[in-house]
């Protein structure tokens, strides 16, 4: 941003700082609170609030020792499941979603009264109703298919959950890739699959990465599906966290420590995919059309 485009004057500047500070407080404080809580004694939590380690209270590694010790297998099991479900279902949802989106963006369909826009709406409508409504039916279906508390079942459930989102996001993305680029590639001598590989895929990359990340986050943060459909073998990290508090009183120090662990994979995913989203921004060349 250049000097010229910046807003000037003291009042707008103060307002901007006030708004940003308020927003930062909401964004940052929960994270800060989780981090400090993970290093507190129960006493410091219940007698608090204490804000600053070494000033208000003396940090302790008690929660972390518990995670590395008696709770290790439970936590690792939940973490592995969560990672598998989030990464796996996001991948399947993006691949299937990309095919669906490409079809919806490029070819006219007609199934009975349903045309492309109706089909898109139909697909997105899967996400309009609250998951809790659908999950009861899903439970019955999964029980009949013996998919309850299985990894395959959870991959299917999260793919079903994410697919509407990826189709919706990617359809718009595919539409913005000019079809003439595929025509140009055809005339350059490339068949349909090669056109997709050399032209569509590289240009769709930012969209694919964004759709993957959002799917990953939704699955990673899901609670309701895992709560209804898993008991022991396929439990995810959010369920592990809840189980910690369900036994007696909530053990906030443990919840916070696992919460920190639960924050790491999405952060890593963002760093890994960020370069696709940022650097390969779709920029279709357009002439000064007459």
């Amino acid at each position, binding site marked *: 941003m250049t000097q010229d485009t910046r807003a000037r004057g003291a009042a707008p500047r103060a307002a901007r700082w006030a708004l940003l500070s308020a927003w930062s407080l909401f964004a940052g404080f929960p994270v800060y609170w989780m981090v400090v809580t993970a290093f507190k004694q129960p006493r410091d939590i219940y007698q608090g609030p204490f804000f600053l380690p070494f000033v208000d209270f003396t940090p302790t590694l008690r929660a972390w020792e518990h995670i590395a010790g008696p709770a290790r297998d439970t936590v690792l099991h939940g973490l592995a499941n969560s990672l598998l479900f989030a990464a796996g279902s996001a991948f399947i949802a993006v691949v299937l979603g990309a095919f669906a989106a490409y079809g919806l963006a490029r070819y006219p369909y007609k199934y009975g009264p349903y045309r492309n826009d109706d089909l898109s709406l139909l697909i997105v409508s899967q996400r309009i109703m609250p998951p809790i409504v659908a999950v009861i039916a899903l439970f019955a279906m999964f029980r009949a298919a013996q998919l309850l508390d299985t990894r395959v079942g959870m991959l299917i459930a999260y793919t079903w959950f994410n697919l509407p989102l990826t189709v919706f996001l990617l359809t718009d993305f595919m539409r913005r890739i*000019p079809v*003439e*680029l595929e*025509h*140009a*590639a*055809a*005339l*350059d*001598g*490339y*068949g*349909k699959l*090669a056109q997709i590989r*050399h*032209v569509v895929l*590289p*240009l769709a990359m930012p969209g694919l990465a964004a759709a993957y990340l959002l799917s990953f986050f939704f699955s990673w943060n899901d609670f309701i599906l895992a709560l209804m459909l898993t008991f022991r073998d396929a439990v995810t990290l959010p369920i592990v966290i809840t189980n910690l508090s369900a036994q007696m009183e909530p053990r906030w120090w443990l919840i916070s420590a696992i919460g920190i662990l639960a924050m790491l994979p999405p952060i890593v995913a963002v760093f890994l995919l960020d370069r696709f989203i940022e650097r*390969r921004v*779709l*920029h*279709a*060349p*357009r*002439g*000064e*059309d*007459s």
Partner: protein
Amino acid sequence: MSTLLLDDVSKNFGDRAAVSDLRLECRDGEFLVLLGRSGAGKSTTLRLIAGIESPTRGEILFDGERVTALPPEQRDVAMAFESYALYPHRTVREHLEFPLRAPGRNLTEAAIAERVTQVAELLEIGALLGRRPTQLSGGQRQRVSLGRALVRRSRLTLLDEPVAHLDARLRHDLRGELKRHQKAQGATSIYATPDFSEAAAVADRIAVLVDGRLRQVDTPARLYDQPADVDVALTAGDLKMNLFEADRVAAFAQPVSGVHRLGIRPSDIRVLDRPDPSALPGTVYVTEPMGYDQIVRVEAAGQVVTARMPLDRGRFEIGQQVWLAPDWRRQHPFDPQGRRLGARLP
């Protein structure tokens, strides 16, 4: 390097006919220009030949062989798009290499590099090879798009307004280079443009399209001298032909029987500053000196008449009283349906 035949090809989009009953042949090594206004069906015709669109009716034949059902990648046709259709993620060099690296071409790296250098030189884009489309101006993008079409030897080369967005100097230079390149390669080429002087400059023959129908195919000279109808006459010529209602100018022009309108090209009208019994009186509307020529627009016979002449034929001021002396021997008589009547008057 092929012959092309469009055998009564029609293309409808919904209930709109973009191209109707088009029968057109392009000979081996010929430079054929499709001339017409925007919406006349030029781009659709090129897209039908390329295989991007399939005809509603009719067949397309290369060397007498039906290709109507073949997808574009199997027709071996190169095309420069009016919208350029450049790949945002590829550099200029990669654009030029892309058609050469397509499956089945089997060119050596040295051959690829040589072709790229050659075409980059032809189009003056050698300095831009490392750039991406977003770093190019409109005219540079157009040249890259043209380069991608010319870099390989294809059966047919289709050029959709390939120099439209270039500045005047480059447009002139490049159409000359295109013609030389086309002749040297013997490449059968079809070139779409709305500009008659551009068409005449490069074409062996010009096909005039009006509302999706072919009106006339002829050499540039015959098209200019003997347009088949009013629409062709108005399209062929960088200045629009003047049209007079026959009964308004009957006293001067001795029209042949059945004539409804008379066409006179701007260069066939002299502007006089003295009264003349055989000339139409009028007042100067505007003058446009062009360096070597001037264009004078005159209000006469209830319309604005355009005349073109060398600058040294006199100077005229806006509002000045003048007399128009058309060379009626060079008139183009049209009947009420707009068709040209017979041969030129003696």
